[in-house]
């Protein structure tokens, strides 16, 4: 067991995967000598060489497209997209090529490509550096989309994503890169557990679902609610696609209330999918309609305004109040 930051856990995980399988190669802009803008690949090119840690031209479609070609050849590329907002030039290669090649080839071509994307806001960056693009990818059949929330999952889930024969969009909550935690690098997870949600706090009154950067905020909200006598169960979704509805439904049937929190915009977001699906599955057990606490339906704002856009502890608690039918809800979204 080691104490590592989230980013150190990712670095250790990449190193471990490269040591384990010579076909694992890393690709991305500035990931070699610089070690990536967030230093996630720090020191890896020095130890594994330029053909294992590939500094690429500045061309996102090119990076993903050539990663597909390398995977076609039998490699397991791990791609780093420098920032969330820069993934869009690669959109066609991800959703029309990477996602569909296995289906297109009737299963003959496997593309075990992992695309790492530092995502989400809260670090005071300019435009295009704080976005939450998960819904685009979760909507695309053929992709799997996951997001760890703590150093142990950062290490383990990245190992699992790289080992997966399907393409995985791996969303790293960049504002949690410096969070420290215990990491067991010898942990051997169940092969399928990458796509399991995890109950990270048990409770009886309400189910609060979050992933990536907002799991910590959700835990803080649950602790604050406890002081007000509300016993919240917090679920770290971990896998955004596929969704572990077994775990989610069991919790919602137990509590009868659900709040979903994410940074991405509300309309057409993951929260909408979870709310609809949980309503379909648990309607008779619900005491209140699912409540979403999300970013607004706006372009990501200038950093001086992002604290309004990003769900924080108070906005999540306000959502909890609405789900509990407590008076004094601030947003008044129930009309």
């Amino acid at each position, binding site marked *: 067991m080691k104490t590592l930051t989230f980013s150190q856990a990712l670095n250790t995980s990449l190193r471990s995967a490269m040591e384990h399988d010579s076909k694992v190669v890393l690709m991305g802009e500035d990931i070699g000598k610089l070690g990536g803008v967030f230093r996630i690949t720090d020191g890896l090119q020095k130890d594994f060489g330029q053909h294992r840690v590939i500094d690429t031209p500045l061309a996102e*479609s090119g990076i993903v*497209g050539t990663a597909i070609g390398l995977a*076609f050849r*039998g490699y397991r590329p791990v791609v780093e997209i420098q920032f969330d907002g820069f993934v869009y030039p690669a959109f066609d290669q991800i959703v029309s090529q990477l996602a569909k090649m*296995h289906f297109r080839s*009737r299963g003959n071509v496997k593309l075990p490509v992992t695309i790492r994307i530092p995502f989400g806001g809260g670090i005071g960056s300019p435009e295009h550096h704080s976005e939450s693009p998960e819904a685009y990818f979760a909507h695309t059949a*053929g992709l799997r989309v996951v997001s760890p929330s703590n150093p142990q999952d950062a290490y383990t889930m990245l190992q699992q994503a790289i080992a997966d024969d399907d393409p995985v969009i791996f969303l790293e909550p960049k504002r949690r890169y410096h969070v420290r935690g215990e990491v067991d690098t010898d942990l051997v997870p169940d092969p399928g557990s990458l796509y399991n949600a995890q109950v990270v706090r048990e409770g009886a009154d309400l189910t609060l679902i979050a992933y990536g950067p907002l799991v910590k905020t959700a835990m803080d909200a649950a602790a604050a609610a406890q002081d007000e006598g509300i016993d919240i169960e917090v679920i770290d979704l971990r896998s955004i696609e596929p969704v572990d*509805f077994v775990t989610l439904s069991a919790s919602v049937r137990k509590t009868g209330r659900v709040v979903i929190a994410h940074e991405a915009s509300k309309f057409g977001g993951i929260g909408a999918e979870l709310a609809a699906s949980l309503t379909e599955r648990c309607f008779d057990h619900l005491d209140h309609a699912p409540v979403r606490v999300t970013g607004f339906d706006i372009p990501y704002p200038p950093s001086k305004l992002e604290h309004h856009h990003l769900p924080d502890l108070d906005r999540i608690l306000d959502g909890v109040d609405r789900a509990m039918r407590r008076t004094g809800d601030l947003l008044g979204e129930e009309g």
Partner: protein
Amino acid sequence: MLTVSPTFDPKAPEGPDTYLQVISPDGTRHPCPELDEWVGDIDVPALEKLYIDMACIRRLDAEGTALQRQGELGLWAPLLGQEAAQIGSGRALENDDFIFPSYREHGVAYCRGVNPHDLLRMWRGAAPSGWNPYEVNMANQQIVIGAQTLHAAGYAMGLKFDGSAAAAITYFGDGATSQGDVSEAMVFAASYQAPLVFFCQNNHWAISEPVARQTTGHIADRAAGFGLATWRVDGNDVLAVMAATRAALAHVRTGSGPAFIEAVTYRMGAHTTADDPTRYRDALELEEWAAKDPLDRVAAHLDSLGADLGELKKRSESAADELAAGLREAITTMPDPTVDDLFAHVYSHPHQGLEEQRENYSNYLAGFAVQGQGTK
């Protein structure tokens, strides 16, 4: 005076002075120092084989078009006029070389031995693609314009990392050269000196847009700007295409970086069976290119060498008949996909949500069967 759009002339003169040629449209062979050494082994029997290949894929194309007209195929992308470009390049490849095609390379697929059943499956709508890429070293047809060039660049990078002697080749049209992916593929291939041949079939039309809408100069010149070795050849001259492809492959195999071939040819038919080229191009232009027919010039050249043309045409017709019969049989024996095919291969291992949808839909369909029994 400022203008807001580039001036272009779709009928700008093109000819042997702007591209390399071995056999003239009238069948005359003339010296071509850049290419002759690469086809020195092509004697009369070998040239006859190339002629038969071209005749076969011309028939393949005619059958594909006819099958679409008969409602057997949902769509077909004709290759008529591009036989020399596809056979000349396809026959220059080694078995280990890997091909990343667009959707019009039926002739290249024919060279790889893709069977008719597999060739037609996608066009019939019976499957998203037809063949196992690893069995013929040729990726499935690519619909998104230019996307496959990046896959080829990545594959070629892998060949280089592996120390393989094989090369990769990617096919695309003149329209694709406007796509960012093609430029990015050239950047990546050049940056890593990957063993990749870019093969552009400049067939002059991207659906209704003339090549002059894609570029105001020669496409091959643009590739040179990326640092690629380039060949601009008469794409209706099978020997010129074969020579350039062999030369380009030899170049990339030495580790000297990627190469680019612009094969100047002409799409005589429609872009696909869904469009009507009479709406956007001049009949005179078609006549000009008909006079440059890839098969006629080989026949004329063989005639000048004393070959028995009558016997050659009998052999080619017989081979084409056999291929056409195979295509028609493939259509009659091709099973329709099943409901299970809807859900198959989306992922390489079970996916919770999809498994649930498959099961629910299966139960839904089974419900009809029970109802049907009940009404009897």
